């Protein structure tokens, strides 16, 4: 009985996989989830692939589309000890995007590394 209680309460590694462009509502709500896990001191890592890589690209102007510039909030990640941030190099390459990001600590991974790192987490939420 105690073993199952311990198993359930043991800290889990959580991955938040971002696959949508910053122009989608989901992108902002995914960031809110990451910050909430961070504020509860859970081990959370952020992954960006597909259109999601656009969330990291510097110099975007969401306000020009009438959106709140939630990308500015990414700067707060380090205060929540969220420093494992991974981006899929292939997704950047096929979109002709450079690795000029608006936050630090971003780690570029090839597809195999990205997949291996993602699957090293116990829980994956995909947004």
């Amino acid at each position: 009985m105690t073993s199952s209680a311990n198993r359930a309460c043991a800290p889990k590694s959580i991955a938040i996989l971002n696959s949508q462009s910053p122009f989608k509502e989901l992108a902002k709500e995914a960031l809110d989830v990451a910050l909430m896990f961070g504020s509860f001191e859970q081990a959370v890592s952020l992954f960006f692939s597909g259109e999601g890589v656009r969330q990291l690209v510097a110099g975007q102007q969401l306000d020009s589309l009438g959106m709140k510039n939630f990308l500015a909030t990414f700067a707060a990640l380090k205060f929540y000890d969220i420093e494992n941030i991974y981006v899929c190099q292939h997704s950047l390459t096929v979109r002709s995007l450079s690795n000029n990001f608006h936050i630090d600590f971003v780690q570029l991974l090839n597809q195999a590394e990205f997949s291996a790192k993602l699957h090293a987490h116990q829980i994956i939420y995909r947004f």
Partner: protein
Amino acid sequence: MAKNKLAVLVTSKPTSNTTHTAIKAIEGAIATNNIEVIGVFFYHDGVCCANQQMQIPSDEFQPLVHWQQLHLTHHIPLHLCITAAEKRGLTDEPSTCNIAPEFTVSGLGQLVELTSQADRVLHL
């Protein structure tokens, strides 16, 4: 033996096939008798599942009826992120409340709690 604990995160629209899949997965989990569904958390467009005023044509799948049944028959807690819900026209103001009573008004902290308690998490 202790049952495996399953938590479910629903971010799909109520009329989406993935919401249907979530409901079927939960019903399947209950039927196995060795999985305990510790709660469902509704976030993003998934919050619209709680809207009592949503009118889906009667010959189509009725997600709200199924969620209500899961709660009333199997006592599955249904947690609603109120921030995401209010953004989509839901309200728990007594005079204008349109949230089905089977849903518990909640916040993202509840998702953290469900995640830490669960052995497995399903996100649709």
